[in-house]
Each structure stands twice: as structure tokens, then as C-alpha cells.
């Protein structure tokens, strides 16, 4: 197999699948294609359940990209994209069957491609110019470009539209960008960033934002690792100092970036992850651990574990239901219900994990580490990232129950006349 650079001839034929293909048809087609194209040692490793061997191939600097080129050109990496852009044109629930079949062979795209494949992909499909589509989509399909998101700022968290990074158009049409972004996963590795910046400070905050596809190698773009409370640095803060951005990098009209961002933020259901199911989850694993170390004999702990088990199963059922119910429709505020329930559950599980291993709540052997402590420290991610639980409750109350909107006295004020928050 030869490694091919983006932009060159396709390395394989596109797979064809009807938009109304049955589960069985999709699975048969994808599996036949995988048997014909997936490297033999990869297939053998999957067959014997050797995930480490599969991971080694996936991460191999030659073989990994070669595989994802092939997958990208087959259309299977982007089943819901339109055929004219290299997808299969499938509805979301059909695309999900493709993705879950790939996942059984560990042949699906990396999780870390989420921002590119899902967020950038759909944003460009919906809002991009013909040039942007031609330049970016083939590489996204093949996973040749790595993307990050540059939305949040130190002063614009829950109130994202209050962002203050400035982009000023210059006489030659280019934009001069200055500001600071935060919570940017992989910004230090990314080729491109999805950037929102303030272009009209005299307009109300939602109406003065413009959206750009920022080349992260532009001078003045400086990601720095941001150490979280876990002690790890999975995120960055990104400093933007006199960054010159061509107008061709703008996506969507000037000052309508908020509408573009809605597309980005609504990419929950896109067929690029598998179908939800009811099955073993984190509570099952905690119960197994409790049985193993004797904590299960404590009736109070046991009932708390069972409570978490019930909640996790009911949340899975709710996810299945929302997937069936929404069909191909755009995601709605119902997603906030599941996000909130998941955040509450994650916290319960995090605390329970340390209750099962009380020593780990104090200290552990550095050579071994402590999964319970790691999970405990990471659990607050879920109730904050992607909109805090307080914001989710507002969304549910306002959009599901029809309660009055939370007062935002600055919503209609020109951005530059609002108080500093």
C-alpha cells in the first residue's frame, strides 16, 4: 500500500450504499470491504482480541495514515457527507451503522479527529465557500489535517457570545487578530483552528462575531499547555498576537459568525459515532471491582453502586430513545437532558470509585498509579465542559418547559457599552 498525499488521485473506489439500506446490507457491505482492504495482520489482531497490536498499527506513522487515506477515499469515514464531497450521502442512523461496523474492527477514525471530522467537516459543508470545501474537505475525509477549536476565552465561558478576541479588517482585506483563547484541545498539534472573533464591537454581542478557519502555523499564534486540576495538560490556552488572517479564511458572512457557530455546536448527531445501545458501562466495571476487593459486602455501598447502575442503564435507554425518536432531525434541547443526567452520574461514579478504594483517596504507589483517584479528579469535567450543568438546566427550563428566559441585560446592548464580566 502506498501512502498518498492529499489532493492526489483516490487510492480506492468509493463504496456505494443506498440511503435506505438495511442494517444487514450495510454491515455486509462494510465487512466485505474491510476484509478486502484492512491489512491482514490488523484483521488477525482483531480476531484474537489483541487491541494493543491494533493500536500499534493505527498509530504507526506510515501505516496509520495509509489506512485512513484508504478509508477516507472509500467514503466510509464520512458516511453522512454528500456524495459530491466524498461521502456516501446516508442519513444519520444509516451512517451510524457504518461507523459501528468499522468500530468492531477498530478501523474507525481516531477520537482525537472529532473536532476536524465532525465539527469542522459539517461547519464547512454547511457554510464553506466552494474553495474552502475543495481545499479542506478531502484532507478532513482522510484525516490528513488536525483541527482544534478556538471558542472559549478567559472572559467568555458560559457566556460564549461575550468573547472579546478582536479581528480588525485592514486596508488590504486581511484581518488582524488579537486575543486569548482557552480550553483548546490539541491546539499545539493542530493544523487548523475554528476561530470566533469580535469584528463589530458596536453591535450587540451575538451580532458582531465573525468565524474563521485559522491556519495554526500563522505567525503570532501561540498555544501554551494549560494544566488542569488533574495535573495533566490535555488542553491549551492560545495566545493570538497580531495574527494576519486572509479574508479567504473567513467562513460565513462578516458578523454572522454566531450562526455559523450554532452549526458547529449542534453536531451531536451526525452518524459519525455508532448507534447508542444498552450494555455494560462504568457502573458494571465498578461493581466488578467492588466484588473483587470485598467492598461489595458493605450493604450501603452495594445499594449506592446499584443506584448508579440503574441510573446508567436508564440514561443509556434514554439515549437509545432519543436516537430513535429524532431520526434525522437536528439535535434539540433534549440533548441537554442527557448531558445533565450524565454529569450527575459521572460525579456519583467518581466519588463511588474512591469509596471502593479508600486508600486511594489518600495515597498510592507512584509506580502503579490509581485509576480511582484519576477518575475522581477528572469527574468534574462533565458538569463543566461543553456548557455547565447550570447552563443545561437553563436550556431545559426555557426550551423544554417554556419558562421565561434568564434575564441578560446586555443581550441587546452594543458589545462595547456592556459592563466588563
Amino acid at each position, binding site marked *: 500500500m502506498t501512502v498518498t498525499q492529499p489532493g492526489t488521485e483516490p487510492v480506492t473506489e468509493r463504496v456505494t450504499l443506498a440511503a435506505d439500506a438495511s442494517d444487514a446490507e450495510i454491515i455486509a457491505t462494510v465487512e466485505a470491504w474491510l476484509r478486502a482492504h484492512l491489512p491482514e495482520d490488523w484483521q488477525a489482531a482483531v480476531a484474537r482480541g489483541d487491541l494493543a497490536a491494533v493500536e500499534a498499527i493505527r498509530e504507526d506513522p506510515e501505516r496509520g495514515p495509509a489506512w485512513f487515506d484508504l478509508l477516507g477515499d472509500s467514503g466510509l469515514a464520512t458516511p453522512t457527507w454528500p456524495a459530491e464531497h466524498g461521502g456516501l450521502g446516508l442519513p444519520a442512523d444509516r451512517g451510524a451503522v457504518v461507523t459501528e461496523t468499522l468500530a468492531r474492527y477498530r478501523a474507525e477514525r481516531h477520537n482525537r479527529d472529532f473536532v476536524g471530522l465532525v465539527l469542522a467537516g459539517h461547519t464547512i459543508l454547511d457554510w464553506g465557500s466552494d474553495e474552502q470545501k475543495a481545499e479542506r474537505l478531502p484532507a478532513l475525509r482522510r484525516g490528513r489535517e488536525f483541527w482544534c477549536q478556538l471558542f472559549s476565552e478567559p472572559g467568555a465561558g458560559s457566556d460564549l457570545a461575550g468573547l472579546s478576541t478582536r479581528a480588525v479588517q485592514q486596508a488590504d482585506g486581511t484581518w488582524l487578530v488579537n486575543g486569548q483563547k482557552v480550553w483548546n484541545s490539541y491546539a499545539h498539534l493542530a493544523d487548523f483552528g475554528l476561530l470566533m472573533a469580535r469584528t463589530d464591537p458596536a453591535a450587540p454581542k451575538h451580532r458582531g462575531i465573525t468565524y474563521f478557519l485559522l491556519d495554526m502555523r500563522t505567525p503570532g499564534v501561540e498555544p501554551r499547555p494549560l494544566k488542569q486540576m488533574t495535573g495533566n495538560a490535555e488542553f491549551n490556552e492560545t495566545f493570538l498576537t497580531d495574527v494576519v488572517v486572509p479574508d479567504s479564511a473567513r467562513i460565513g458572512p462578516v458578523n454572522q459568525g454566531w450562526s455559523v457557530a450554532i452549526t458547529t455546536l449542534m453536531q451531536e448527531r451526525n452518524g459519525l459515532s455508532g448507534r447508542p445501545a444498552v450494555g*455494560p458501562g462504568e457502573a458494571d466495571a465498578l461493581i466488578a471491582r467492588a466484588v*473483587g476487593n470485598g467492598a461489595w459486602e458493605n450493604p450501603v455501598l452495594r*445499594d449506592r453502586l446499584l443506584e448508579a447502575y*440503574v441510573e446508567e442503564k*436508564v440514561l443509556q435507554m434514554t439515549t*437509545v430513545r432519543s436516537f430513535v425518536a429524532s431520526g434525522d432531525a437536528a439535535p434539540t434541547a433534549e440533548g441537554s437532558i442527557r448531558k445533565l443526567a450524565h454529569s450527575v452520574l459521572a460525579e456519583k461514579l467518581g466519588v463511588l470509585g474512591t469509596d471502593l478504594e479508600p486508600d486511594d483517596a489518600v495515597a498510592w504507589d507512584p509506580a502503579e498509579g490509581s485509576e480511582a483517584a484519576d477518575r475522581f479528579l477528572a469527574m468534574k469535567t462533565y458538569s463543566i465542559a461543553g456548557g455547565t450543568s447550570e447552563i443545561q438546566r*437553563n436550556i*431545559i427550563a426555557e426550551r423544554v418547559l417554556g419558562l421565561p428566559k434568564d*434575564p441578560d441585560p446586555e443581550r441587546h446592548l452594543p458589545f462595547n457599552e456592556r459592563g466588563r464580566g
Partner: protein
Amino acid sequence: MYAEQREPEFGWTDEHRGLRETVRRVLADRAPVARARELAEAGERHDPALWSELAGQVGLQGLALPERYGGYGGTLLDLAIVVEEMGRVLHGGPFLPTVGLAAPVLLAAEDPGDGNADGNGPATEYLPRIADGSLTAALAVEAWDAAGGPVTSTTADASGRLTGTVPVVVDGGDADLLVVAAQGPAGPAPYLVEAGATGLTRTPLETLDLTRRAARITFDGTPARALGDPARGSAVLARARAVSSVLVSAEQVGGMTAATELTAEYARTRRQFGRLIGSFQGVKHRLADMAVRQEMAHSAAYFAAWQEPGTPEFVEAAAIARSYCGDAFLQTGLDAIQLHGGIGFTWEHDAHLYLRRARADRALLGSPQQARAELVPALLSRVTIEGVPA
């Protein structure tokens, strides 16, 4: 217990939607919450004219009974929709006790799901009368053990005479037929006692849920008929209980949906401090949590209703639903009163009717904590097979 890929649940059909609309319309017309309150305050068990109409024109009592028993051959899912709608309007009286608690035992005894459908036992006499509305029934079980089987101190002698007391039987004072769990020669098993049997004493009790009546039942050498194979008695009762759990969960979903809607409507219209109280986050966040519980409870009840009765998947999903819906409705009942403030604490307001229903339903078939304990055997068998993850 879970297959890697499964048929999608929650694929509602037009028939399901039509059934829901029909039942909702009939109940809105004939049995709104105000009517449930009126009956409760008048000390009436139910509206017998409506009962006959539901059996006759609408066909609800026999909806999910097999056609050979005069029913319409509907599914448990169909019946869950009906019971949820009844739960919304706090419909009380004999429907749930008869159709949701007693009939499943008669059905399970007739057809235990092992291919040995009986077809000529006593249930064949009673089920058609339930279907046509001429018979009401109640389930008399003292308590349930950790394996989901009945606990009973009532004994049945060799000739089938019962002696003992069941402390609380919902609708037990009025039902035409009592389905009683008693200790028989081969262990706990279901027996049938008709109203008016000798040695049967029914003492009316005061109920927390005002829409339902209840009685203490005492047997003193009371003649009874064994229902089905006595050796399978405990399994029959456990099987029926899983079905009943799904239906009680559906009723809880209906109740908490209505209580949440009632409260949201109040928050959208009640003003204090110059603004709608629904604009205060202290109010809207509590209501958002109510909405979360309602969605999750709905998923739990109907996921269970979608499973094939009698399968391990069904039994587990039924216990999950009973655990989740029982706790969720209780909390929502409390929150509904809380968010209504003083008006919610008055007799005239409906909020307490929901809280009463929530608390009583949560005790009907064993507590949520008990439901969780029932999950343990299946869970542990999976843990043993899969081993302890590293």
C-alpha cells in the same frame, strides 16, 4: 444479558399514538383529575358507569388479554400506554388492581411461558369476566423476598382452605375476586377467593392515596381454589410481578409528567417580586431536574415494556424501571408542592394528590431499594463470567 446489536426500542407506531389519543380524550372528558378528587371526597370507589364504558365501547380491561379470553390480544406496551394516561389524571379505582396487578397472575398461571399453557384452569373462567368488565380483582400479597417471590404468613391446607391475614390489599375490600399468595403444601402459590366466601373478613382502611381504597383481609378457613400448578406458584407470582412493575412504572410516568406540567404552568404564570417565578433560577433549575427525571423514567418504563415478557432482559428492565420510576415520582411529587409554595400545601390544590399517589405506588410491589437488590443475582453472574477488570 445484552446482545451486541438489538432491535431498536421506542419505535412508536400510528396504532400506539392513536390508542394514546383515544384514551386521553376519553379520560379528559369523563375522568379528569377533578373527577378523581370528587370521587375521593365522596368516598366513592369509582364511577361504575365509566368502568362499564371502558370495558365495553373502549375495550380497555381486555385490551392486552388474549382473544381466547375475550380480550383484544394487545401487548403489554399497549396496556402501559393506557395506564400512563390514567396516571396523568390520577385515575383510581379498580383498573390498576384488576388489570395491572391481579390479571397478570391469572395469565401467568394459565401460560407460564414454558409451553405448558393450561387453557382450562380457573383463570379461564375469570379472565373473560375481567375483559367484559363484569369482574374486578385485587392482589393480596404481604411482601416480596429478595428473589422476587412472595412472602406470606397465610396458609392453605390440603383442601385449599386459607387461614391468615394480609395487612393491606389495594381495592381488597371491594374486589369481586382476591388473588391471594398463600403458603401451600408445595410452597407459596396463588389462590383464588371470591367475595362472600365463608370466613372472609375485609376491614376497610384509610389510604394515603385518596383515589384508591384498601382493606385488611382476614381468612379463617376460607375456601379457595388453587391457581395453576402449585409447584410453580412462586415463579408464577414473580413473573406476574415483573409485568405489574412495568405497569406501575407507566402509571408513575403519567403521574410525574402531569405533576411536572402542572408545576411548569404555575411557574410560567405566577408572579412575585415583579416577575414570573419561572424566571428565577432557583425555580427553573428544580423544574429542569423534574424534566430530566420524567424523560429518564419514561425511557425506563417503556424500555421494559418493549422487552419480551418472561425473558431475563424483561425481568431486569422491569426491576430497573421500578427502582427508577418509584424514586423519581416521589421526588417530583415533593418538588411540585415545593415550587407551588403555600398554595401547594392546601387541600384544594391537586399537588398533594400526586405526592400521595407517588408515595403509595412506590410501596405497591416492594421498594425501589428492593428492586435494586433483585438485580444482584443476574449482575453477579455476569461479573463472575467476565472477571474483575484490571
